[in-house]
């Protein structure tokens, strides 16, 4: 397949006025939900899913994809200016981005975040285009033992990267793991901890938990800290970064893009994990790690590049194999099937306009986003000035509608509100919800793949060590864990998250 010809096909689809319009709409909505804390792209995509029934398949995917990567742009604006991550993937951007804003360098921080996102988006688009086939092949190397070991690594990473005491992070992962076990066991069909409630047969829904914990709970806690709002008056200053800032960020952007592109392809990976990993890597590899947390521009450039690259490359398993790597991609599968497009490897060959059209639109979308973000930054900021007494009820309403619309189920709304309360409790006792949600998502996958691997090896646990990729991942987890418990690193780790 020649790349130029394919991209030409793609651009001929992406550049039609209608598709440019849908791409812009997606990017605009994405930026909006990205800027506003509490409204996640997953809620938005779920909410808009019914409206895509009437669109052509390419247009609907172009718009939904735009929301997803657009949110990664918008999330950083709020993180830098208000110290509240607009998206979970922008959590680490708060650390240094907001410190820069406090030092009067808000403009350059925003500019670097947008430029890093654009650069990563462009590179990731090219990566998706050139590497789809081999990447799909790599994903096929992963079978049950590899997935299990990957989940172990993911959960170890969640603990290492968590704020606060490691004990609390471990506890949160375990709570998440346990709640993830609710529902019908895939290997035996036995319902576990469902208490006879039919709705719990499929497990506790991801969307209600995510919206409750990350939407409503975060906002409720924000409301209790009114002083955060005053930080909005931070001077933007000039948008243009200084020469040194630029020189420091370019390599960080490239490293973040590389890391994000790899982590995005892995199941359970995606934007949030990518940005955490990129920040940790930047800090580790820096000659002056003490600058991090006090306004180091690399600490903005790398995670911002990584989350955009990760958001985009998470489309690779979806577009090449039809396998969703995360909850948002699962909604995309739904969107494709509604259109009568059966996701799978045949999409690339049987519907090249759809496949390459969506990929090409990612680039046009990224271009639109940089235009939306930089000159219009004032507009987005003023959006944040809308008082919480107006915004908060509106967001709660949107959260309820979004939760309800996923399954037309009032039960889910109840679950969402319950987890909002639990989320507030967790934050109040200083336990982070991020390891919890990772445990919740990765735990059941880990169990499922562990038991499947054992079933396939006819009960021989050596299978995890005999397969090279699996063994490598397990060794990496062991090293991470050893490093975590070593006292030298613990003090260093605390420094990373000192704000």
């Amino acid at each position, binding site marked *: 397949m020649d790349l130029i010809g394919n991209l030409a096909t793609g651009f001929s689809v992406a550049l039609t006025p209608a598709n440019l319009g849908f791409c812009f709409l997606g990017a605009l909505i994405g930026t909006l939900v990205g800027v506003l804390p509490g409204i996640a792209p997953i809620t938005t995509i779920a909410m808009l899913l019914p409206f895509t029934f009437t669109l052509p398949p390419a247009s609907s995917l172009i718009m939904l994809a735009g929301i997803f990567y657009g949110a990664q742009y918008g999330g950083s604006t709020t993180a830098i200016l208000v110290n509240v991550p607009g998206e979970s993937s922008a959590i680490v951007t708060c650390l240094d981005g907001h410190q820069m804003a406090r030092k009067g360098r808000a403009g350059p921080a925003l500019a670097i975040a947008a430029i890093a996102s654009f650069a990563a988006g462009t590179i990731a688009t090219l990566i998706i285009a050139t590497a789809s086939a081999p990447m799909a092949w790599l994903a096929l190397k992963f079978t049950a033992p590899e997935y299990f070991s990957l989940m172990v690594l993911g959960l170890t990473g969640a603990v290492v990267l968590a704020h606060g005491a490691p004990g609390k992070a471990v506890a949160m992962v375990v709570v998440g793991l346990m709640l993830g076990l609710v529902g019908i066991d*895939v290997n035996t069909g036995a319902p576990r901890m469902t208490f006879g409630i039919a709705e719990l047969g499929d497990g506790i829904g991801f969307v209600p938990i995510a919206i409750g914990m990350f939407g409503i709970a975060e906002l409720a806690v924000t409301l209790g800290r009114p002083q955060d709002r005053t930080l909005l008056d931070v001077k933007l200053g000039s948008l243009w970064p200084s020469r040194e800032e630029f020189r420091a960020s370019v390599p960080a952007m490239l490293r973040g893009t590389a890391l994000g592109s790899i982590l995005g392809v892995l199941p359970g990976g995606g934007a949030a994990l990518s940005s955490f990993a990129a920040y940790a890597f930047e800090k580790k590899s820096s000659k002056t790690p003490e600058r991090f947390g006090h306004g180091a521009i690399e600490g903005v450039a790398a995670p911002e590049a990584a989350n955009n690259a990760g958001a985009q490359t998470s489309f690779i398993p979806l577009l090449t194999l039809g396998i969703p790597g995360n909850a948002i991609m699962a909604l995309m599968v*739904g969107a494709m099937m509604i259109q009568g497009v059966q996701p799978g490897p045949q999409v690339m060959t049987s519907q090249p306009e759809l496949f390459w059209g969506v990929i090409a639109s990612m680039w046009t979308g990224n271009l639109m986003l940089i235009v939306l973000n930089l000159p219009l930054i004032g507009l987005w900021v003023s959006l944040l000035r809308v008082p919480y007494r107006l915004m908060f009820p509106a967001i709660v309403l949107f959260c309820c509608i979004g939760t309800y619309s996923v399954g037309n*189920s009032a039960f889910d709304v109840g679950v969402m509100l319950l987890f909002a309360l639990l989320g507030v409790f967790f934050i109040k006792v200083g336990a982070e919800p991020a390891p919890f949600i990772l445990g919740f998502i990765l735990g059941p996958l880990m169990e499922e793949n562990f038991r*499947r691997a054992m079933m*396939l090896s006819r009960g021989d646990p050596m299978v995890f060590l005999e397969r090279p990729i699996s063994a490598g991942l397990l060794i990496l987890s062991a090293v991470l864990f050893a490093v975590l418990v070593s006292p030298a690193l613990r003090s260093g780790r605390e420094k990373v998250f000192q704000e």
Partner: protein
Amino acid sequence: MGHHTRRLVVAALAAGALGFALAGPADAQNFTKPVTIIVPYAPGGTSDILARLIGPKLSEGIGQPVIVENKPSASGNIGADFVAKAAGDGHTLLITDVGTLATQPSLVKKLSFDVQKDLVPVTMVMFSPYLFAVHPSVPASSWAELLAYAKANPGKLNIANSGVGSIQHLTAIVVQKKRGIDWTHVPYRGGAAAIRAVVANESNVIMNGALPTTPFVKQGQLKGLAVSGEKRLAQLPDLPTFKEIDMPIVETGSWQGFLASKGTPPPMVARLNAELRKVLAIQEISAKIVELGGDVRTNTPDEFTAWMTKAIAEWGEVAKAENISLD
């Protein structure tokens, strides 16, 4: 109250009384308000696509709007329960598949409704066969060769299915018992995950919906062995049918049908049956259903009832013999 108004009221009352008098028997098969089709699965599945395909044409036929509503969760039982408990006036319909209608009743003992008593079958809609395939590394290109391979290499075959108690799983159990083939059943979360696993050679045998599986066979990522039912697939004409290779269970596959709430009067069920069959006879609709991987299959309410009774009994027997239960 002015003179004018009073006259209106009298007229309205008279009209109402007249309407009431006329309503009697004729009303049993007329549609007086919007009809809701409940899909007990998330948007995007086969039942959902069928409902959205059929809905607009059904609306033209009955002269009332048709609303499609998804009520997913609990393997379709929440949505089915909703229709089971709705008013028996033919204005709430359920479209669902073999899982809710034939296996759940045997697998889940504590169902809040009785599929056979609380729902009235209207008509079947489509039947889609399964494709039986292996990973290309398995040295067998036919069912006979696979049987021989399994005999010579015990413990080497793993058959992926889309979940414990799924038709794929139950069919593989029947084949195992009746033909003595040695394979381990590996459950996955849905057909797509099962295909991925076999393409990756995690498991190496699969029996799964023809539509999602065909592209992998055509591209050589899976090796097709046979197709369930009695009819060869147009897209893979070289594959023999289950009947040709003498499988112990021939008509295994996925099917969907429409049902109404308990108490729906027989004339209404007959009208619905007639309207739905009219819609399914439209060439454009049946062509779409072929695209979905199956064939249009309609029948009378009595035939559909008999089909369901037979399916529930057959699969129930397998589930009971194997002691498979989902609660």
